[in-house]
């Protein structure tokens, strides 16, 4: 599943960039994500992703690995984890880029999400819709955080 999102943030690029690396504040914007930990600053992080569709709950302990980092403009990362309770795995390839446009910063992200195992039995369409909603909420939360304290 591939998702592309873009959000205009009324804040300078530097501020958006610094926010992304402020792990606790950043993770707080990802719905269902908590317990963020820095394993190796700038390189590896860990968090717990929880999500729910009706009675079906998943809890993925994930590790996030930063693969590429172009200062102030782009981050490539990969997140992966497994929910052993229900026997499912998740992998997210994330490509985040920042572009300055006047007094705003355009934050774009492309996410390739793979979900394997029993969770996939819920159906691709339902998972896709849920993931889409999570990403929308995330984009709006980032915008609120950065514009709120401008």
């Amino acid at each position, binding site marked *: 599943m591939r998702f592309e999102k873009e959000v205009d943030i009324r804040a300078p690029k530097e501020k958006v960039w610094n926010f992304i690396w402020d792990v606790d504040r950043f993770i707080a914007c990802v719905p269902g994500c908590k317990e963020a930990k820095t394993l190796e600053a700038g390189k590896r992080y860990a968090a717990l992703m929880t999500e729910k*569709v*009706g*009675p*079906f*709950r998943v809890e993925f302990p994930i590790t996030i690995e930063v693969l590429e980092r172009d200062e102030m403009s782009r981050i490539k990362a990969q997140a992966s984890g497994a929910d052993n*309770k*229900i*026997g499912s795995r998740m992998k997210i390839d994330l490509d985040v880029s920042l572009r300055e446009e006047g007094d705003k910063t355009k934050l774009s992200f492309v996410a390739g999400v793979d979900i394997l195992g*029993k*969770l996939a*039995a*819920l*159906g*691709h*369409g*339902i998972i*896709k*819709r849920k993931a889409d909603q999570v990403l929308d909420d995330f984009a709006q939360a980032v915008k609120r955080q950065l514009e709120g304290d401008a």
Partner: protein
Amino acid sequence: MLRRFRLEEPASVREVSELLGRFGESAKLYAGGTELLLAMKEGLVQYERLINVKTVQGLNEIQSSDGIIRIGALCTHHQLENSPVLRQSLPVFVKLEENVANVRVRQVGTIGGNLCFAEPHADPGTLLIALGAKLVAEKTDSRREIPAEAFFVGAYETCLEPDEVLTEIQVPLPATRSGIAYLKFGYLERPSVGVAVAFSRNGGDSIGDIKIAVGCAGPAPKRVVEAEEALKGKTMEEATQRLAQAGQVAGRAADAISDLHGSQEYKEHIVGVLLKRAFQKAVSQG
């Protein structure tokens, strides 16, 4: 494999609601078990407790009075397909129930369980929306009636509060000369798309109230008011000419998603085809 769980056997709706309130998400209502136990066996959901609602008396009756058909939430599909009250007053619902899943599921699966589990590929919710049904939810100290169209909020999600129990489905007795039909299409065990149409006739030969609902295409069954508008108040001839347009509108409004049953575009097309056929069937039977 099914993990161990405790089985609670309450005797009243109040007790059921209290148990739900006390144990929260570690407990789940258990009626027929045709969906729940499968999900538990697969390990997709785990509960410490199941609350067996079948021990509550009086929730499996079907009655018709004061222009309302009252269906107890614990009625099995088998009971519904064989109910003299429904055969007399709501044969379209009997027909739907005769074709739910398979005979083993119909024997133990309940209408309440079907609605509350809110599996997207299910039949009854769609027809109940078109029929303007109300679902009665009760808890320890209150009772409310929820229009069927507001009951489903997403895939596997309803608007029931954590300690609410669905106790009854109320279907208004259709007016004489009303036209009602439900059609579904699918090639897997569950339906891929289901469409329900229900309309009353004005004095002449025109359509009075009309409700159209689409199920299975999207995450939850939904009423498609946009398609109703295209047919409301029209003569049968005018409505027949507008069916293709109404079908397209319904397809777009159906909130269809791509899944194993078909792509979004395919489902939208099938919605249009089924709407046309369901309307024609409703006209011929009205």
